[in-house]
């Protein structure tokens, strides 16, 4: 399930999941996973230190806060990645990351005509997602091949994802092409309804107890994910480069949030969110980077168009600028605007009436990611790098060491989504991040 937002459905990426409410984080599992990672890192690094030319360790953490009087959300996302180069052509990599989520969310979605108090239905929850990744990259003269496997687990979700990518450069290294493919085999826990049961009679989960056991009240549903991507990077002049990226994704299976119920009748009847079982998604992104010599600043401009078979059309426009304030200190500022149309079956209220409110066919959703919305983002990052002089190491240990601090502010404008007719107040998100990188 997705990690940021129990109220939202599981779109797409193998590592993503729609996560949900009332479960308690099992800290011993986090500790166990961390211990495992440390052990793996230790083994890798021990092997590497004997003969490796370079090893790098990345430690990071992010804090996501979405303040709200009624719901609110906090996510802490620690991560660690160790990469080792036993020789010139091979890099072996291991990584661990977690999403420690806590907050409250409305478990029932209804619109202005719904006869339920969806606001007071907010329930507190916490959960932890753990994910470990192992991978490699083989680099030859002008080509590289990468492969990785990621296993992610939560109380109510399991994910297995494989990814491969290959790239090459030609035309005197002015052109680079990269192809990648990802395959995910995920499982999500739901209530134990049969496929033949009417969607309107299906119940939402109220907690994750019994998930992935032989509990007769729980069932495991498959989610199949296929992701394709092609990237073309081109240098045009000594100060100008562009990148064109085409992405496609195919999803099949249970694509809703198992915790979310939607009011589907004026009498207040509720049913588990019901989304189509198939979704094809495509995106094209074009970015350009230009170095302004007089300002000594690298400026990047980008645009992305997105379309899927649920009829969502999204547009993204990005602008960022980065420069060295000191030889060892870089500062980046960025801005982004995003807008999307609604899914074909989206309605703020499914209890009756047309066309603004009312039934949208056989599907119903409480996912605000499927509603028409736009968002603004502003933020930046400061990054400091210290490099050892020839024959010397930074702090006696690192060939190179860097640290970064980032902050972003995201404001979302929900054009149609309400909770019982009231606009949600959790539309401002704050994101802090910190990263440390050492190369040995």
């Amino acid at each position, binding site marked *: 399930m997705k*990690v*940021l*937002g129990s109220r939202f459905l599981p*779109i*797409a990426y193998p590592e*993503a999941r729609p996560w949900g409410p009332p479960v308690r984080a099992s800290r011993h599992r986090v500790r166990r996973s961390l211990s495992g990672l440390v052990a793996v890192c230790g083994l890798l690094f021990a092997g590497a230190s004997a003969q490796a030319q370079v090893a790098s360790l990345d430690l*990071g*953490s*992010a804090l*996501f806060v979405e303040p709200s009087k009624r719901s609110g959300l906090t996510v802490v*996302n620690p*991560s660690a990645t160790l990469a080792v180069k036993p020789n010139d052509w091979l890099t072996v990599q291991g990584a661990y990351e977690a999403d420690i989520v806590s907050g409250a969310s409305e478990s029932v979605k209804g619109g202005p005509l719904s006869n339920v108090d969806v606001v007071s239905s907010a329930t507190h929850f916490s959960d932890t997602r753990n994910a470990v990744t192992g991978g490699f990259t083989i680099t030859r003269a*002008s080509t590289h091949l990468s492969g990785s496997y990621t296993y992610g687990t939560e109380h109510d979700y399991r994910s297995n994802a494989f990814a491969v990518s290959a*790239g090459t450069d030609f*035309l*005197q290294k*002015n*052109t*680079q092409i990269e192809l*990648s493919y990802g395959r995910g085999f995920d499982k999500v826990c739901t209530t134990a309804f049969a496929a033949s049961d009417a969607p309107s009679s299906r119940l939402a989960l109220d907690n994750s107890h019994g998930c992935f056991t032989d509990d007769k009240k729980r069932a495991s549903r498959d989610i199949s994910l296929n992701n394709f991507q092609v*990237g073309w*990077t*081109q*240098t*045009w*002049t*000594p100060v100008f*480069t562009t990148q064109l*990226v085409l*992405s496609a*994704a195919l999803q099949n299976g249970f694509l809703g949030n198992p915790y979310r119920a939607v009011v589907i009748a004026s009498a207040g009847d509720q049913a588990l969110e019901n989304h189509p079982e198939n979704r094809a998604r495509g*995106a094209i992104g074009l*970015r350009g*980077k230009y*170095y302004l010599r007089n300002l000594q600043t*690298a400026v990047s401009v980008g645009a*992305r*168009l*997105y379309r*899927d078979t649920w009829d*969502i059309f*999204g547009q993204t426009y990005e602008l960022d600028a980065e*420069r060295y304030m000191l030889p060892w200190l*870089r500062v980046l500022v960025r801005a982004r605007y*995003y807008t*999307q149309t609604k899914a074909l079956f989206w309605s703020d209220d499914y209890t009756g009436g047309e066309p603004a409110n009312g039934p949208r066919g056989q599907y119903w959703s409480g996912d605000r*990611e*499927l509603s028409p*919305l736009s*968002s603004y983002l502003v933020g930046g*990052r400061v990054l400091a790098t210290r490099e050892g002089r020839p024959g010397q190491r930074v702090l006696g240990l690192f060939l190179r060491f860097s640290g970064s*601090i*980032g902050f*972003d502010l*995201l404001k*979302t404008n929900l054009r149609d989504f309400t909770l019982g007719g009231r606009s949600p107040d959790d539309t401002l*998100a704050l*994101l802090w*991040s910190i*990263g440390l990188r050492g190369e040995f």
Partner: protein
Amino acid sequence: MKQLHARAVLQALGLLLGVTVLVGSAGCATVRPEQRAILADPTMQFDEKSADQAALEHTLDNREGSTGGGSVRGGGCGCN
């Protein structure tokens, strides 16, 4: 219906023509290795795997209905 079909074919042909022109012109753009000092700088790289970028992508993936079309590895180095 036929008009729609014809328009789609025209759009596809236009896209194909545009890509062909772009790819063709790419062959004319030659930046020599000694001219790559700026292109090789981290500030000119796409898909720099920084902590803040990873966190931001993670957030946006979970707050928007769209996905994909992001950066891939690539940039201006190729210095050797």
